[in-house]
């Protein structure tokens, strides 16, 4: 496809990258969740677009699934958690934001370089976006790494999933439906389990700050 749609797709990809950066820099948990929601929406949009363009319709389905899970269900759960567990709204990062950003830039470059040869011979419509997907993955990895609180870590994890989904759609026009289903289920299950698990953490430690979880080590 050429012209308008691919430009739109690239736009969405760029948006995705921007959002990821924003999440990387975001201290306040609630707005982090909102950003995550937006993130999901962008992914869904791109999926729909590709599905429309390449007219393989199971992408619609998986887009819908993602919408349901990542845009509605999970953010809702997270909101609930934040209120139920009285997580403090501001969470400091381990490394200060500007440094994080710089490293992020580097990662993006790395990701593009890695993706280049692959993208070159990808038959897909949106092969150029693979690099961005990869960047998203790495950035969210980074995000999990620098967050010192359980909930942002989970969000980072889910963002990663988004990145992966985007990669799947962008690079290969979507995985087979069955797999998509399985992945989605796994993600839901994971979120639920972790949600419950948060309460346990809360029982033992007065908050979800993972500094509490650093006792088991070699001494």
């Amino acid at each position, binding site marked *: 496809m050429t012209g308008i749609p691919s430009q739109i797709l690239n736009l969405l990809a760029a948006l995705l990258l921007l959002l990821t950066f924003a999440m990387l820099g975001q201290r306040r948990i609630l707005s982090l969740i909102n950003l995550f929601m937006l993130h999901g929406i962008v992914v869904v949009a791109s999926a729909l677009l590709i599905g429309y363009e390449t007219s*393989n319709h199971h992408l619609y389905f998986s887009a819908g699934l993602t919408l349901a899970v990542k845009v509605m269900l999970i953010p809702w759960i997270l909101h609930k958690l934040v209120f139920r567990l009285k997580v403090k709204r501001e969470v400091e990062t381990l490394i200060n934001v500007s440094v994080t950003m710089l490293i992020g830039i580097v990662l993006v470059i790395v990701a593009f370089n*890695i993706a280049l*040869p*692959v993208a070159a*011979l*990808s*038959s*897909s419509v949106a092969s150029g976006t693979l690099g961005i997907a*990869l960047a998203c*993955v790495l950035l969210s*990895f980074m995000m*999990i790494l620098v967050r010192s609180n*359980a909930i942002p*870590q989970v969000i980072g*994890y889910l963002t*990663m*999933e988004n990145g*992966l989904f985007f*990669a*799947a759609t962008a*690079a*290969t*026009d979507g*995985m*087979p*439906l*069955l*797999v998509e289903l*399985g*992945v989605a*289920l*796994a993600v839901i*299950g*994971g979120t639920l*389990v*972790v949600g419950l*698990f948060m309460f*346990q*953490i809360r*029982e*033992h*430690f007065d908050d979800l700050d*993972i500094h*509490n*979880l*650093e*006792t*088991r080590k*070699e001494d």
Partner: protein
Amino acid sequence: MDHLLLLVLVTPLLGSITLVLLGHREAAPEINVGFSLVTFIASVLLAVEVIAQGPALFIGQYFFADSLNVFIAALTAFVGMTTSLFSRPYMRIERDNGRMTGRRMRLYHSMYQLFLFTMLLALLSNNIGIMWVAMESATLTVLLLVSIYRTAASVEAAWKYFILSGVGIALALLGTILLYLAAARHFGIAGDALLWTNLQAAKAYLEPATTSLAFVFLLVGYGTKMGLVPMHSWLPDAHAEGPTPISAVLSGLLLNVALYAVLRFKGLADGALQNGLPGKMLIGFGLVSVLVAAFSLSRQKDVKRMFSYSSIEHVGLMAFTFGVGGPIATYAGLLHMTVHSLVKSAIFFSVGHACQKAGTQIIADIRGLAHVSPTVGCGMMLGSLAILGLPPFGVFSSEFLILTTAVRELPWAAPLLILALGVAFATIFSRVQSMVFGDTTAKPLAHSPALLPLFIHLGLALLLGLYIPPYMHAWYVQAAHIITG
């Protein structure tokens, strides 16, 4: 044959559901054992079928079994069964000690079955996507099982496990996608680009650049589950803080399944790349793991931690061996995989009871098991001797093969292995000796300890050391052939 495979897969799933629905009954452990037993028998029958009639696809193309994965599946079902036998008295004692409540017992048993299900699914699925899903859900079940004591330490261990292997598994998914991408060029956009059988058949046509990228992500992803250094950090915590049966299955099963996945992908990557790079990566990871684990052993104060490091060491050894490749090395690797999961789980059985007797997991506080309960003490001593690669146990034969092959293939690596093995020997033997011998503080147990599984495992390891039955031999040879391609 479909029904057999279905039986293998459905029994544990059914089991977990029933155990959830039943709630906690006094008989729950026995039910658990029952389901595991059925699974085991079914898997053995399946194995026999497959060995007799060669690899086969089931239920359309969704599942398939060849001598490699059906063998590991049988092993998994077996260890799962014996471990359920062990966990019967063990968990009862834990409950009497007040560490478990009825609700937790319910959770424990259902999750145990679910874990078995995910393992078997991952092994038998023909679709790498489904395999990924199975692994992911295995992560979740283990998360619940490890944290089942609800102690601060166990929660922490579980959380670390979740984050680390969650991230790892996500990377593995990316790897899967990339592999799909690499294959898609050959197959066109179709679901069957994710099927082992097709990938195997077409591995020569996989697009090299993408495949290598995919393999990196898959190696890091599933390597995390294997416990390869430096992605191993979750493993000691999870082993030490979870209930001992879980430590046993983690060491005995999870590592194998992850290794199985890596092996499959290595086969594909080798076919696509033709430059031996995957092998080199495995060798590198293997050596690093072996060395780091061996030297970390001596700092451990917690007995389960110590043996979990020994698991890392042995996984590293296997990775190294499979990395070296070639029929003999692969044979040795498979043999090592078998005896390691037998012996290591046996060790955890004995360690579990020993800790219950002594009321602690601290090595320094466990003394004189030989006096208070000769069987457990002797089991622990024999097990450790076996894991240290002393004859007449099977680890000796596999390590003999591994070392001699290493000398042939990479003479420079052999001294490193020797060094690591020597250090590991020094540490483990001295610790175990001080636990088994000397004067004692330990006390007798409420329920009679489960010695049957312990000695079954040791007996099998002994058998494999002295005499490998031709049937098993043929089996190993086929499996090795599948891996080496």
